[in-house]
C-alpha cells in the first residue's frame, strides 16, 4: 500500500494562502449557471401564469361590468378616507385583542397542562371553555355579546358595541390559540422536563423557563395563521354597527351602488397581513439558524 500524508509540511495557517483550483472555479461557474437558470425558469413561469390569469379574466364577457362595479378608480378615491378612518379602528382592535389573546390563550393552555390537584377546577373550566368557545361561530358570538351585554343594562358594564365585539373576538380566538399553545407544549420532549427537574426546578418553573420558550418558537407559524385570521375577523364587528372599515365600505356601496369599496378594504387587509407574515418568516429563520447551526 502506498500511503502519503499530503501537505503535512504546512500544517497550519494555510487558509490565507489558498486560491481556488481551476476545477473549483469551473464548478462555481456551473453552480452559478444552474442558479441563474432556475431563477429564470421561476420568474418566467410566474410572469406567464399571471399573464394567463390576467388575459382570462379581462377577456371574459362580463369584465367591463365587473370592472366598473368593483374596480372603479373614482369610487376608490372617493371612499378611501372613510375606509382609512374605519380601518384604523380595525387595527387598534386587532392590536389590543392580539395581546390579550396571547396572554389568555397561554394561561388556558397552561391550565390544561397543569398537574397540581389544587388547579383541578381551573383545568375543568379550561377544557369546557375551549370546547364551547371553539364551537360557536365567531359572528354569533360577536352578535350575542355586542347586542346582548349592553342590553342587560347592568351598572358598571360598558355599553360600547366595539368593546363587546372585541371581547367576543378575544374569547373566540383565545380558545384557538390555547390549543395551539398546548400542542406546542406537548411537542417538547419529556426529557426536557426531566432535565429541568433534575436541576431542581419545580414543575411550574420547568414550564416557565424550559418548556414554554421552546413551545412558543415551534408554534409561531400556526399562531401567525390565527392572527392573520383575527385581522380579517375584526371585520365582524361591523355586524354590531361599529363603524369600522367594512361598515364604511358597506355604507358607501349602499349609497352609490358600487362595490369598489370592498376591494379597497380587501387591499387594506392584505397590506396589513403580508408584512406580518414576512416578519415572522424572518424571525423563524433566525431562530433556526441559531439553534441548528452545524447540526444534522
Amino acid at each position, binding site marked *: 500500500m502506498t500511503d502519503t500524508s499530503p*501537505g503535512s509540511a504546512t500544517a497550519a495557517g494555510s*487558509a490565507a494562502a489558498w486560491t481556488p483550483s481551476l*476545477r473549483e472555479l469551473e464548478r462555481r461557474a456551473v453552480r452559478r449557471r444552474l442558479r441563474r437558470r432556475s431563477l429564470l425558469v421561476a420568474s418566467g413561469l410566474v410572469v406567464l401564469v399571471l399573464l394567463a390569469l390576467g388575459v382570462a379574466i379581462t377577456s371574459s364577457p362580463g369584465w367591463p361590468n365587473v370592472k366598473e362595479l368593483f374596480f372603479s378608480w373614482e369610487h376608490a378615491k372617493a371612499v378611501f378616507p372613510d375606509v382609512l378612518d374605519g380601518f384604523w379602528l380595525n387595527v387598534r382592535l386587532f392590536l389590543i385583542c392580539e395581546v390579550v389573546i396571547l396572554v389568555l390563550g397561554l394561561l388556558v393552555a397552561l391550565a390544561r397542562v397543569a398537574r397540581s390537584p389544587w388547579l383541578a377546577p381551573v383545568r375543568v373550566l379550561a377544557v369546557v371553555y375551549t370546547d364551547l368557545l371553539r364551537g360557536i361561530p365567531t359572528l354569533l358570538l360577536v352578535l350575542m355579546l355586542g347586542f346582548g351585554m349592553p342590553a342587560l343594562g347592568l351598572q358598571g358594564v360598558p355599553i360600547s358595541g366595539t368593546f363587546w365585539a372585541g371581547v367576543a373576538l378575544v374569547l373566540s380566538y383565545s380558545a384557538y390559540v390555547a390549543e395551539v399553545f398546548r400542542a406546542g407544549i406537548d411537542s417538547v420532549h419529556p426529557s426536557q422536563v426531566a432535565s429541568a427537574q433534575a436541576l431542581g426546578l419545580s414543575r411550574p418553573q420547568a414550564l416557565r423557563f424550559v418548556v414554554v420558550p421552546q413551545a412558543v418558537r415551534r408554534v409561531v407559524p400556526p399562531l401567525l395563521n390565527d392572527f392573520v385570521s383575527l385581522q380579517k375577523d375584526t371585520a365582524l364587528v361591523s355586524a354590531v354597527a361599529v363603524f369600522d372599515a367594512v361598515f364604511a365600505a358597506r355604507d358607501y356601496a349602499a349609497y352609490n351602488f358600487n362595490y369598489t369599496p370592498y376591494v379597497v378594504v380587501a387591499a387594506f387587509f392584505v397590506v396589513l397581513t403580508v408584512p406580518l407574515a414576512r416578519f415572522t418568516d424572518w424571525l423563524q429563520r433566525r431562530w433556526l439558524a441559531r439553534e441548528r447551526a452545524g447540526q444534522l
Partner: protein
Amino acid sequence: MSALLEVRGLRKTYGDRLVLDSVDLDVRAHDVVCLIGSSGSGKSTLLRCLDLLEDVDDGTITLGGVEISDPLVDPREVRKRVGMVFQAYNLFPHLSVLDNCTLAPRRVHGDSRAAAEERALGLLDQFGLAEHARKHPDRLSGGQQQRVALVRALCTGPDLLLLDEITAALDPELVGEVLTIVRDLAAAGTTMVLATHEMAFARDVATKVCFLHQGRILEQGPPDQLFTAPREDRTRQFLARVLPTAG
C-alpha cells in the same frame, strides 16, 4: 486496482472556519478505512462531504470513476450507491422498524413491497432483530436502534458504507453488539469509511487508518504501522491520550 472512491484536495469551510483542508483519500473496494482524530478534526464533515450532504469548497470526489463533486451530478444517484449511518441513529420514529428499512428500497429503488420486506427481514434476522421488525424504533434500546440504522443503510445494497461515529451515543455495554455487526460486514468484504473513537476496533478491522488533525489527514497507513509506529508527533500525542497503554 483503481480506487472505488478517490478524494483529491478536498476543502470545506463554514464561513471563516476551515474544516477540511486539502484532504486526499483513496478507498478501494473491500477497504475498511477508519478516520480517527479528536472532536472537531473534520471526520464527520469529511463523511458528510462524501455523501454530498455538504457542498465542497474545492477539490474533487470521484466514485467509481465519476466525479460526483460535479454540480451537474444528481446527489440522489450517488446516494443510491452509498449508505450512511449517523451517530444519533436518525431512525424515523413514525415508521416501524421494517418500514424504516423498506422506505428507500421501495420509494427510491422501486422494489416491490414483498421483495423489499423479504430482504429487510433477512437482514434484520441476520443481525438478531427479527423479533423487533413490527415495533417502532423508540421501543428499542440504543444498540438495537443503531443496528436497525445499519440494516436500513444496507437494505439498498450500497457499494460504499459511511459510518459516522455510530457507537459514540451508545452505552459501553451496547457498543459491542454494534461493532460486531460492523466487524461481520468488514469480513464479508463491505467497503466502509468510518469515523470512530474505538481505537481497538480500528486496529482490528481497518485496512487503513487516517489520523485527522485540524481538517487535514496528517498521517495515514495500515493500522499496525499507524498505531505502533506513528510518524507524526501529533498522532503520537493523540494516541497517547486515547490509549494510554499504547504510549
